[in-house]
């Protein structure tokens, strides 16, 4: 069976060949052939992994270690590194789930990426990623692991910014790579230290001889590797890139940012367990505390996220924290166990979320979901399995692995256990929240959204005030008309007076003159009458205009108070149908109409099949490592050769273990129950109902009449604290720092360069202006004069030489 072990190279060769083929022929292959090719490569890699697994298992337990060397990679003096693979239980376990879950995600992607213009490029990156990931776990030395380590990082960069025309995606990709590089710095320095003390960075040499390390050196290596691991596995303080990484296509989030790449930190720390064992006790404690605090912090943030993928991203950070907690507590088996079960259920959850997003017209906001259970039966059923697994409900897989971690944490430090338990409660809570918001409750996709309601009201308010303005303009012109009519009236009157005077002065003897004056007089008095009528009409019009203004103002007040009463149509929760007041279809745009006509759909079988397989895994993966007897500890027994007897052993008796397990189950139940109470039963805040005083009383206060109306009525809005929603402001602070003092200090360096360093040069330059001028004159075209200069110089040189040499 040893021949099977010789197939190890095939595990990485398959995806590498897949990558190369798609690189060369991708465009010709197109959709879906490129996807099938990539999937076939992964399947081939999985088969090779199984073969190697069988071959390794066939060996006696103390001989389950096999090195396959391909060629000398970097031979520099006594630093010599091979391209070779270390096949041992740990690496084989990793390859099995990487290739297995990986193949399923590849298959899923064929459906998910359907119609994308860069379809084949996507699969090229996926295969390159798989290759790098497998190099990471199979590399027989730290440098080769580092190759995979940076390789997965760069593939992650490519895939996060896959839809690069969007600036946000591009930034997210860069952020991921740069943040990871901070961790890589730690990894590199750890390699330097390892090599300069042990003389090798080949795992076999390093691990077998770690016992000879001084404690301080081992501690330094551990801490440096922790820095590296914290970058890749998104732990405090380097976790900030992972939530942004959700900008990539969802299968990427499932494969890279949940199941495989982000677990490399855990793999690395597990791999070097003999070094951790030699370090000062505070080093593993540090790992445990980093993990525990990360787990708790990320869980609190997950509670208040509305983006379906962001919840899962913070959940991933939190679960990785559990794995670090396990590693720090010496529970390497539990860490790997949780890594594998997590790969199943988190990949499942991510792919499920992708299926939802796919079915919901690429909307990722859970507030817009609701009631999808019936519309997407397979997705929801499998998602629910994933939820139960991560929430720690027995007998789903997550229960077993999480329980084991908590048991070890209990023995390490009660406080660590308590943090782990609180995290478990929060996990059950936010995952239930996600399930309820997505699959249960009212179907909300067709709802008019708060921002749309607000916008419609703004339009109405604007219209009303425009009407008021219009009426007031009318009023003003009516006033003007009155003034004009009055003026006319005045002048008519004046004319009448003058005609009267003419009349009285007229010579009564002159008939003709009298007749003319009389006629004039009549005409003038007629004009006065007309003018009087015009004035009356103008006054009437003015009164009309005044009424119109009043009416418009009343209307405006009504609209304002209606807008204030309705606000954005919600009361801070998603439970009730939005209150649109007397808004009607005409007030809303075409988007609303399109949404009302949209029919969410279940995804094609290419996507649901992987969901079903992963769900099966999420149910049964727990049997890998059942706690009931040593014989059922399959994973533990299998990994033993890779752990150098550094695995901690539980000293608590069976009773204590049962008690811890029961407490953990109760914790999960509390989390779920709370979510049911808040999100299903819609627990209301005591003493508040839909507030009567919303409306005119607060309308118009600092321009936000809606402010008061949005006050929460339900507990849901009370637990989703802004502090959590904005991630404890960590990311914002970093961004502010980088954009502020960080950028300023960089600018200062550049200013220093131009003013001080180069400035000095230019000042010196001015002193030697003569020389400069001479050269510049040459530059103006007299090439020969320069040549002459060189010649003269050479002659002078020779002359001097000869004079010196003569004695």
């Amino acid at each position, binding site marked *: 069976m040893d021949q099977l072990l010789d197939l190890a190279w095939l595990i990485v060769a398959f995806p590498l060949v897949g990558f190369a083929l798609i690189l060369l022929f991708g465009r010709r292959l197109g959709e879906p052939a490129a996807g099938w090719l990539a999937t076939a490569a992964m399947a081939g890699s999985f088969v090779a992994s199984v073969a190697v697994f069988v071959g390794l298992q066939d060996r006696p337990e103390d001989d389950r270690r096999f090195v396959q060397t391909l060629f*000398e990679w*970097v031979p520099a003096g006594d630093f010599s590194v091979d391209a070779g693979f270390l096949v041992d239980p740990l690496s084989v376990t990793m390859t099995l789930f990487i290739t297995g879950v990986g193949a399923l995600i590849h298959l899923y992607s064929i459906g998910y990426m359907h119609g994308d213009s860069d379809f084949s490029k996507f699969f090229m990156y996926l295969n390159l990623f798989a290759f790098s990931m497998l190099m990471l776990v199979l590399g027989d030395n730290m440098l080769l692991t580092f190759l995979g380590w940076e*390789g997965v990082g760069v593939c992650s960069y490519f895939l996060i910014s896959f839809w690069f025309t969007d600036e946000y995606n591009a930034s997210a990709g860069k952020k991921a790579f740069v943040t990871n590089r901070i961790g890589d710095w730690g990894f590199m320095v750890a390699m330097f230290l390892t090599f300069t003390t042990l003389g090798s960075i080949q795992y076999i040499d390093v691990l077998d001889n770690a016992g000879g390390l001084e404690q301080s050196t081992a501690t330094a290596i551990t801490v440096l590797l922790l820095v590296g691991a914290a970058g890749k596995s998104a732990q405090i303080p380097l976790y900030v890139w992972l939530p942004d990484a959700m900008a990539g296509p969802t299968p990427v989030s499932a494969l890279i940012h949940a199941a495989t790449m982000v677990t490399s930190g855990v793999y690395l720390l597990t791999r070097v367990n003999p070094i951790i064992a030699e370090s000062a006790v505070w080093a593993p404690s540090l790992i445990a505390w980093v993990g525990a605090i990360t787990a708790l912090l990320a869980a609190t943030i997950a509670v208040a996220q509305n983006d379906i993928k962001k919840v899962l991203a913070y959940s991933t950070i939190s679960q990785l924290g559990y794995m670090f907690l396990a590693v720090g507590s010496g529970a390497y088996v539990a860490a790997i166990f949780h890594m594998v079960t997590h790969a199943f259920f988190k990949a499942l959850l991510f792919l499920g979320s992708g299926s939802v997003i796919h079915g919901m017209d690429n909307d990722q906001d859970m507030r817009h979901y609701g009631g999808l259970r019936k519309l997407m039966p397979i997705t929801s059923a499998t998602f629910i399995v994933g939820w139960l697994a991560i929430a720690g409900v027995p007998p789903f897989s997550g229960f077993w692995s999480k329980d084991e971690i908590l048991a070890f944490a209990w023995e390490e430090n009660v406080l660590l256990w308590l943090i782990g338990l609180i995290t478990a409660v929060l996990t059950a809570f936010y995952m239930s929240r996600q399930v309820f918001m997505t699959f249960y409750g009212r179907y909300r996709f067709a709802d008019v959204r708060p921002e749309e309601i607000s916008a419609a009201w703004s339009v109405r308010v604007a219209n009303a005030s425009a009407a008021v303005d219009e009426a007031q303009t009318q009023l003003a012109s009516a006033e003007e008309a009155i003034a004009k009519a009055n003026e006319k009236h005045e002048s008519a009157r004046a004319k009448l007076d003058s005609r009267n005077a003419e009349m009285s002065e007229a010579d009564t003897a002159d008939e003709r003159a009298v007749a003319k004056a009389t006629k004039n007089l009549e005409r003038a008095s007629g004009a006065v009458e007309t003018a009087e009528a015009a004035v009356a009409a103008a006054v009437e019009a003015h009164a009309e205009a005044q009424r119109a203004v009043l009416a418009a103002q009343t209307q405006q007040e009504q609209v304002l108070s209606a807008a204030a009463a309705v606000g954005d149509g919600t009361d801070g929760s998603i439970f009730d149908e939005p209150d649109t007041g007397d808004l009607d279809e005409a007030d809303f745009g075409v988007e609303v109409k399109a949404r009302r006509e949209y029919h969410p759909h279940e995804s094609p079988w290419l996507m649901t099949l992987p969901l079903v397989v992963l769900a099966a895994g999420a149910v049964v993966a727990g049997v890998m490592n059942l706690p009931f007897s040593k014989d059922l500890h399959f994973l533990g027994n299998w990994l033993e050769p890779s752990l150098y007897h550094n695995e901690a052993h539980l000293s608590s008796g069976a009773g204590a273990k049962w008690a811890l397990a029961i407490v953990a189950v109760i914790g999960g139940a509390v989390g779920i129950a709370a979510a049911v109470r808040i999100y299903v039963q819609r627990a209301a805040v005591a003493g508040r109902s839909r507030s009567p005083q919303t409306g005119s009383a607060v309308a118009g206060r600092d321009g936000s009449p809606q402010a008061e109306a949005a006050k929460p009525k339900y507990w849901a809005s009370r637990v989703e604290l802004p502090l959590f929603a904005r991630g404890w402001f960590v990311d914002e602070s970093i961004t502010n720092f980088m954009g502020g003092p960080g950028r300023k200090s960089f600018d200062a360096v*550049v200013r220093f360069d131009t003013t001080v360093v180069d400035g000095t040069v230019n000042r010196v330059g001015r002193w030697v202006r003569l020389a400069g001028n001479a*050269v510049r004159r040459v530059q103006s075209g007299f090439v020969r004069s320069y040549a002459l200069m060189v010649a003269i110089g050479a002659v002078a040189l020779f002359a001097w030489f000869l004079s010196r*040499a003569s004695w």
Partner: protein
Amino acid sequence: MGTLLTNNVLANSIFAAEAGSAGGTFPVLSAIVVTPMIGALVLLFLPNNRPEYFKQIAFLFSATVGAMSVWVLTDFSTAGAAEFQLTDQHTWIESLDISWYLGVDGISLWLVVLTGLIFPLTIVGVDAEHGPKAYYSWLLVLEAGCMGVFLALDLFAFFTFFEIVLVPMYFLIGKWGHGERAYAATKFFIFTMSGSALMLVGILSLAFLNQAETSVLTFDLETLANSQEIATNTARWIFLSFALAFAVKVPLFPLHTWLPDAHTNAPTAGSVILAAVMLKLGAYGFLRFGIYLFPEAAVWFAPTLVTLGTIGIIYGAIAATMQRDLKRLVAYSSVAHLGFIIIGSFALNTYGLEGGLLQMVNHGLSTGALFLLVAMIYDRRHTRVISELGGLQKPAPKLAGVFILVTLSSVGLPGLNGFVGEFLTLLGAFAAHRWWAVVAAGGVILAALYLLWAYQRVFHGPAEGANAEISDLKLREGLLLAPFVVGIVFMGVYPKPVIERMEPAVKALIAHVEEHVPDFSEPVADVIIFNDHDSPAESGEGH
């Protein structure tokens, strides 16, 4: 041309060639230096009315040199890499024991090959914008000078070539450059000239002081290196004069400010050759003439130089981050990259020196390719200002693909060439000056920052206006970049053939230092454990 100096070189080299063939073997190294010179002369005598032939002829000559450099590579004996091979020595000025002495060993081999290949690629790939005759002539003179520097084993010959290099580059920047080309060319000239003026004093002092001690006047590199008769303090002063000349060329902080100006304003070919070949003259000089001639002084100055190198790594990276012009950005990234070479070289151990040498070749490949790529962007958009570019990946995916590959090579991604060199220099520095290496390793974070940020701003985001309409890589451009891409991948995956050919020479250099500096021993792994687990480490001590 027809200057006295060149005539001397030519006359002697022709003589050398004859003598060599009389001996039965073709004097390939002399031919490598002389062929471009002949090419330049041929160009000068060509009639001006047939400009289309200038480029072809220049390419023919440089390609011949390229072929000969490959021949040198195949003829090179790895086992004897510590010795100077294919040597070719002829008396030049007998009274001063100055000779035309060329030879190649593991230290210079790859630089010769790099130079031999870069020049024809640059000549065929980048057209002269005007004045092709003079342009190609100067390029060929430049090639001869660079080759001469890498091959010369006589201090006088070396200095001559070192100076010759200045002239064509000065004219290339000044006449064929852009923007403030006169300022940039003058700055370049004055910087390097003042550096080498001091070196000349150093060379003469060394020769005559050595004569005073040994009563033999010679400029022969090996003889002087093995003599080591000069007083320690004096040697340090002379080393300093050499070091200044090299530090300017490298360039080492704080003598780097000519580089961004020169790079930005130089024509494309100038930038490529400046980055790929000319910056290596200084780095190579440090190894061949600094450490070899003055081992004690090199050890004594090593901490200072490693410090300056480390500052350069961080400082260059920070400055690169804030640049607005792509070419300036690449120029400052060179300051950072060359910093790695310096800390590796002055770690004075096998990994560091080999890493430094590798990095010289790597930097030539990746920065050379970067300048070509920037030029291709400039051809399409007529701007190099980063903020005016954007979204280019959409209209030009292939250009973007090669750009990101080269960028990642420059970032030091494992599997590509940049990583191996960078890692070895840092490892070497860690063994020798631990804390500096820890700081310098921070440079890899900054490299990712400035290069990927630049890539994002140029290639990602929406493509608008003129940016949306650029064309993708043309076949000719693809063929030009192909050798760089192949080199970048090959040296990342299988650097062994490169490393093993330099190793004997590097070890000999370290042994030389150990021999002449009593309390110096190679700072290597402080191995506390050795086991026989088919471990590659063979020099451990005890269990």
